[in-house]
């Protein structure tokens, strides 16, 4: 049967991707109760930024040609930029609106970004040659792991650790964690709402960009729909993890990734196409058992 180590690497790489996306959603939800459905489009936007805008079938690399040392920070800041821009253009004007109106506007914003990408790049998926040298397998603890997969796992760990450090060790991080838990109280202590919200959007956008880079490297394609599925899983992960809990979002992201890989590995062939039905049934069970989330902070109270 399948090698356990291999299974572990599969689960960790997929879970890591989900965890990063979930973190991006949870950050914004924490500070402004916004379920940002445009997050998937941020991912697509960052992937498309790698190539020259054109409806031609053959993609010409734009940012993608830059050396990694330059490319990574560039794409991360681009992700941050589109997130900040969307906050500035849309969500800033909706701070007093109820979460439903905000959610629907985020969906409308995603719709706008997606269709703009379609109009600019055409409907045909594009190929992206990002770091092809990563396409070599390496042997690790008895498993034959593509270098790519290792890098995905390492990147995830780095990003999560980096973000944890940022949240734990910096002034902005402290303010964001405080704001995520109780936004008004943080403001009463002089924490600037605009700074925290802009910071959260910037980080969230940068996380989307990180996911975009990993997906582009992993799949080698750019497609407008590529962020959608991952965004939905991430959204679910933030709720299962406990709304407002950043560690919860990460843990739940890994959990969903692992569950998905295990189902794929152990379901019989006939049931395998129904994988997602099993996965989402587990989600409902989780919610019924722990409506407040699996990993809720000690002081959590219902927020919505």
């Amino acid at each position: 049967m399948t090698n356990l180590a291999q299974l572990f690497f599969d689960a960790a790489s997929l879970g890591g991707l989900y965890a990063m996306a979930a973190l991006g959603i949870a950050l914004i939800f924490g500070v402004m109760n916004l379920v940002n459905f445009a997050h998937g489009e941020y991912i697509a936007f960052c992937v498309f930024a790698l190539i020259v805008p054109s409806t031609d079938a053959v993609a010409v690399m734009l940012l993608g040609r830059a050396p990694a040392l330059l490319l990574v920070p560039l794409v991360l800041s681009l992700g941050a930029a589109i997130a900040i821009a969307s906050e500035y253009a849309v969500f800033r004007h909706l701070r007093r609106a109820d979460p439903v109106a905000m959610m629907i506007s985020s969906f409308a914003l995603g719709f706008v970004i997606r269709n703009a990408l379609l109009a600019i790049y055409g409907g045909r998926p594009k190929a992206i040659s990002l770091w092809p040298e990563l396409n070599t397998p390496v042997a690790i603890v008895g498993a034959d792991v593509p270098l790519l997969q290792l890098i995905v796992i390492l990147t995830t760990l780095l990003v999560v650790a980096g973000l944890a450090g940022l949240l734990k060790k910096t002034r902005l991080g402290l303010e964001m964690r405080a704001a995520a838990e109780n936004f008004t109280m943080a403001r009463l202590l002089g924490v600037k709402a605009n700074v925290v919200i802009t910071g959260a959007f910037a980080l969230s956008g940068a996380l989307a960009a990180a996911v975009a880079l990993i997906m582009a490297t992993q799949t080698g394609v750019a497609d407008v729909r590529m962020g959608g599925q991952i965004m939905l899983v991430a959204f679910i992960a933030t709720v299962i993890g406990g709304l407002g809990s950043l560690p919860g979002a990460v843990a739940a992201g890994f959990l969903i990734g692992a569950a998905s890989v295990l189902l794929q590995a152990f379901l019989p062939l006939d049931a395998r196409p129904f994988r997602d039905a099993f996965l989402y049934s587990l989600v409902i069970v989780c919610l019924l058992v722990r409506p407040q989330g699996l990993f809720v902070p000690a002081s959590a109270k219902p927020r919505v």
Partner: protein
Amino acid sequence: MSKLGVFDISVRYGKVPAITDLTFHLEEGERVFIAGPNGAGKSSLLNAICGRVPTTHGRIEMDGDLLTGRAPEAIARLGLSMVPEGREIFGSLTVEENLRVGTGIRRDAEAVETDIEEIFAAFPILGERRRAAAGALSGGQQQMLAIGRALMTNPKLMMVDEPSLGLAPKIVDQVYDTLVALQEERGLTLLIVEQSSLRAARVGGRMVLMRGGRIVGEGNAADMADRDALAQAYFGNTQPEAEEVA
């Protein structure tokens, strides 16, 4: 010029009035209690001053600066600090982190460190548990932490909403002792919502009595406590006239 001036303000929640045409002043270094039954508008007044709820009418000034219309963080930066009802500490943050949230507005980095140590000296239990999650503290400890947190912004005016709520009388004594000591030490101006006029009388200071969103009496806490007792004897336990929104 008084420390804090509230001129003719009104606050509404939807169609329900919480405060109607209220005016009052607070002098530098003063200690003022606001007393009154549930729904009198006490918390609403504090929330209006700190910018948490908008006023529909009137203006509020501190040291001549207009507070009305400013964001809560801007008001905090002018030197006003709040210990809210229910304490609202950040449960997932550590005790020390709670204290540091409000220090972003200060320019004196070294003083922050000594202030933190001072607070730990004043509340040794907080010092012992400085790395523990604040959510795990007991109610009294959380109250201390909320006060410490408010102090860390280095305020000129501090507002405390119902510090005795849900605490054992012995703990409440301790909280008030600390508040009074701190005030004397730092020259703070204190505005405290206290439902028990007897308690206010015991601590001492000026007292403002609210009812139905208006001020119905004002004077020395000790005198007022008697009058309040009298009034309650007359009117019974009055029904809340407006929902108090935290």
